[in-house]
């Protein structure tokens, strides 16, 4: 392992994290604006043009607020839980390819690292995400937090199953766990019009993935862990200031991560029409990728603005009795088709 490689990788990480944090801040703005317009309101308008500086103001507010650590909490875990939530959310981006392999000094600049087991890496990181929430709920030593934490850990392990199984369909089509190969496998089109995206053969898988992803990120209509009407604010009831902001950050980072993964797995990643001069050709894939992710974020917000919250038993029944069998059926069907196609 040589030094330039290390430095380049570090640089990539810094850039991605910085861009990501900015993007997340603006996702909040985006959500507030979209929901507001859906409800015939204006949303943030005062800070900056169209309220564009609102995220900045929010960050400043959250940082400068007093950080209260309630007495009676399990201190170490209480302090570590939000960090855990953020770290696991950020780690997913280590394997996401943002564009085609573009080398600069022998190093791919559009992906931090291309793991052979990229998909498994994402699954393993997201399976660790539950600890941040569960431990936050437990360590707060408050009944609302505890119930929120319990709910969330049950919800997340339940929907993780459906998520993992729905991804298997894509793996079966690709024959690899590397995200770059998944995207490469989706290049080209049928009859020159319909792109080779996995969402077409795997629409059931995509549906399962997206629904369970929403549940995994604890977003509406699956946001029971923080259902304010029942549990005050769920697992982060006792948190304030920056620590609260970290949960907030983790949630939106997770949303972005899930959108990125959905784009890569089902919507051809960066693939899209590429034209024009060379510089444009390099940048266009990034733009397509960005637009696709943005579309997913819009769907997220749209769902939030439209659907009511599930009841807890409905949520569990939906996950176990509907989504899981559906994902299983999709997996069996896909493997059957693949076996017939490449039967030997």
């Amino acid at each position, binding site marked *: *392992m040589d030094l330039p490689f290390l430095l380049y990788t570090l640089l990539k990480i810094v850039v991605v994290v910085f861009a990501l944090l900015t993007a997340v801040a603006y996702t909040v703005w985006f959500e507030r604006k979209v929901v507001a317009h859906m409800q015939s309101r204006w949303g943030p308008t005062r800070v900056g043009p169209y309220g564009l500086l609102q995220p900045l103001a929010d960050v400043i507010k959250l940082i400068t607020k007093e950080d209260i650590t309630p007495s009676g909490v399990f201190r170490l*875990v209480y302090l570590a839980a939000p960090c855990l939530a953020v770290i696991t959310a950020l780690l997913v981006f280590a394997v996401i390819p943002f564009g085609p392999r573009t080398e600069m000094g022998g190093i791919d600049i559009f992906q931090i690292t291309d793991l*052979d*087991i990229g998909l498994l890496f994402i699954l393993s990181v997201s*399976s660790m995400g*539950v600890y941040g929430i569960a431990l936050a709920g*437990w360590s707060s030593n408050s009944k609302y937090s505890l119930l929120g934490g*319990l709910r969330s850990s049950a919800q997340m392990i339940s929907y993780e199953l459906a998520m993992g199984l729905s991804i298997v369909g894509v793996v079966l089509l690709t024959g690899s766990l590397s995200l770059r190969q998944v995207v490469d496998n989706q290049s080209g089109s049928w009859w020159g019009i319909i792109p080779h995206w996995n969402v077409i053969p795997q629409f059931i898988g995509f549906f399962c993935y997206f629904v369970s992803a929403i549940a995994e990120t604890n977003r509406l209509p699956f946001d029971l862990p923080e259902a304010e009407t029942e549990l005050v604010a769920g697992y982060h009831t006792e948190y304030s200031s920056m620590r609260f902001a970290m949960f907030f950050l983790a949630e939106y980072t997770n949303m972005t991560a899930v959108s990125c993964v959905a784009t890569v797995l089902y919507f051809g990643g960066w693939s899209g029409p590429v034209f024009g001069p060379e510089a444009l050709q390099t940048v266009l894939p990034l733009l397509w990728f960005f637009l696709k992710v943005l579309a997913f974020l819009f769907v997220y917000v749209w769902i939030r603005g439209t659907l009511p919250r599930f009841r807890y038993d409905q949520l569990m029944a939906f996950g176990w009795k509907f989504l899981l069998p559906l994902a299983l059926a999709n997996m069996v069907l896909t493997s059957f088709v693949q076996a017939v196609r490449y039967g030997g």
Partner: protein
Amino acid sequence: MYEILFFVFAAAAVGFAINLLVQRHPIYSAISLIGVMASLASLYLMLGAEFIAAVQVIVYAGAIMVLFVFVIMLLNAGVEERTNRSRMAKQLGAPLVVLLLGLLTSLVYRNFPPDAAVRFGDFPGQTADIGRRLYIYYMLPFEVVSILILVAIVGAVVLAKKET
């Protein structure tokens, strides 16, 4: 470089394992065990077992330990008390454990050829090969563990469900 990494992760694993023993609250023990598992996953990576490393995190740390944490939270388990019996266990068990430790380590250390060394990248991870081997040579165990999982589901439901 890799020597350092090995020693860092090995020390982390042992440290977390000792912490598991020392901590009085089960949730801290659980967190320590997660630490052990994460350190082991890194060691698996260094041994070229990428797939096992990922599965270690997904299954062990991400599913089994979540279940543990969940149950600890559900039962609201408190700090464990020390009772008379535990003192007795200590006096009887301590020499036994030390004996076991000494025997196992010396045996393993002495009897494996010292020139067998681990070089990173010598045995690159072969997830596809594992799959192929699993489905061809180990088809029977692979199919049969499904019975085991079914047993576990039935058992968990029978034992833990509410009275009807």
